[in-house]
């Protein structure tokens, strides 16, 4: 007998009363009068920075202003012209180490906790984590209230269909004496650029 059959057989022999699946459609989940305002508030609370980009403003110029000292900028987004590295064409993922600013696109944001859904849309997802500073471009119309709405919406990319993540703020830890420190193993800062329609 295979391990799988063996384990399932033992489980079936031992399990007692069976319980029904509850109805989840009646969950009265929190909503906000203005989800965008709530999203921005929560983003700051979790240590992120939120900037609304005016119509017609070039994000390349804006990112340059935000990170004047950045030498290595990684992105595969067509509208990003200041990139020095491309996560689609690097030889190995580790070649992205030393990236000062990584620029990626978010699909939508979640007002209750500042999560942004980032499906993998590049060959090496390392760019989302290995960069010292992460910039996420997010259309400001794409904000949902809560995770119930979010999980009805998430989709993986057609080409890179193996991975996606919610990111809320920069990498952080409080593992040394419960003191909160931004920048544990992944990005040390997270900047969300809210793009106009």
């Amino acid at each position, binding site marked *: 007998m295979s391990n*799988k059959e063996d*384990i*399932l057989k*033992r*489980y*079936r022999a*031992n*399990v*007692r*009363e069976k*319980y029904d*699946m*509850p109805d*989840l459609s009646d*969950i*009265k989940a*929190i909503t906000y009068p203005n989800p965008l305002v709530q999203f921005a508030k*929560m983003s700051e*609370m979790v240590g992120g920075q939120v900037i609304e980009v005016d119509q017609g403003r070039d994000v390349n110029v804006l990112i340059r202003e935000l990170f004047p000292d950045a030498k290595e900028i990684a992105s595969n987004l067509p509208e990003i012209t200041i990139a020095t590295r491309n996560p689609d064409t690097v030889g*190995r*993922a*580790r070649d992205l*180490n030393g990236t000062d600013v990584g620029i990626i696109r978010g699909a939508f944001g979640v007002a*209750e*906790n500042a999560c942004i859904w980032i499906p993998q849309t590049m*060959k090496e997802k*390392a760019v*989302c*984590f*290995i960069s010292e500073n992460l910039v996420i471009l997010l259309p400001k119309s794409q904000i949902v209230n*809560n*995770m*119930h709405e*979010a*999980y009805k919406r*998430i989709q*993986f990319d057609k080409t*890179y*269909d*193996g*991975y*996606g*993540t*919610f*990111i*809320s703020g920069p*990498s*952080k*830890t409080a*593992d*040394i*004496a*419960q*003191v909160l*420190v931004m*920048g*544990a*193993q*992944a*990005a040390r800062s997270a900047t969300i650029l809210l793009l106009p329609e």
Partner: protein
Amino acid sequence: MSTGHSKAAKEFLKNQNYAKWHDATFWSVRSKRDNMAYGLDEWEQLREKASAIKRHTITHLDEYLDQFATNAEKNGCIVHWAKDANEFNEIVYGILKNHNVKKIVKSKSMLTEECEMNPYLEAHGIEVVETDLGERIIQLKGQKPSHIVMPAIHLNHDDVGELFEEKLGSEKGNHDPTYLTYVARLSLRNEFLTADAGMTGGNFGIAETGDIVVCTNEGNADMSTSCPKLHIAAIGLEKIIPNYDCLAVFQRMLCRAGTGQPTTTYTSHFRKARPTAHPMHIVLVDNGRSEWIGNPEHWEALKCIRCGSCMNTCPVYRRSGGYSYSYFIPGPIGINLGMLRDTQQHSGNVSACTLCLSCQTVCPVKVNLGDQIYQWRQQLDDFGTANPQKKMMCRGMSMVYGNQGVYNLGTALAHWANIIPSPLMNCGLNPWAEGHKMMTFPPKPFHKLIKEIEK
């Protein structure tokens, strides 16, 4: 009369300043949890749903496990089934050997602790690097976690500073947590870039999609899987849930309950390997779970999502620390899981409970933790692990309270105990005097006073 737990707690309490800090720290985490819970009108409804989803899922686990494995394989993953810890370790080592792996980086996984995987792999010549900062600290220190979410909570910044001076070459005397975190970041960055494989646990497995979902604040699970060419995910059978609608309920509660944050920084869905990597391996681990589901009083311990909120709130955990428990998971859930694992080895933990039931009041999936601990206590005599001194006392008490004459005589004579000299009364022979001041017995017992008043 002391149990293993209370003896170990005595050691913990020797450093009163630290014990106070530990207590206050966890109470502040509990308060943060309360702020989160009170911030959502639907919190209690979510707990109810979360409990019901888990009850349903763990009593239909054969169907959901099969669905999960089928979908994961469809996605291109290789799924393994491990009956016990030993088999799990062998499977993981087999995969690593096939890929000629010398070094793995791994994110935090209580399952690999449960199976004692690290020492097994190290004995077979594989270097294992923990990448959660807390886990890395205790790995460098050669210790075990003292909390499931905050594994290095028993060390202060000076302890970590001195450790890093020795192991990572940090500046002498610089024990600033921000600086020390940065030192660890640089050192771990090098490990991520040079490891041959990455290993993660899994907070959830989604039957409908085959996703492994991992929640971290540090991003170390994502770093562990971004550069190495091989990803192995290890997950206990009970972590499988049906679909994304269920996941939404748990994702909202896990971190709010555990650390008082609205979410972890990263909630990552691993469905298959990166385009440039080898196929992803998933190891499903039983190690007792398929037996525990049959325990009529304790099967609901399998609902646990390992948020840690029961230990944060527990007055005994807060005042005795993780190392006072004999099982590797401390606090209320650890007491119960330890007893499911081995009653002979872990009976000493069931005394570490005041039955205040704060644990089951905060538990996001409504595991009846305190009730279960009470149940275990009723069975100690059957297990042969009841304390003989306590047993004798209970027999004595039932003799006194069950017999009116003896009881009346006892209460009438009790005040004579007051004249026994204090050194005799408060010596090691009287277990009551340990940590208690001996009470003064009234010259007239209560029932006599009442009778006089009623006359």
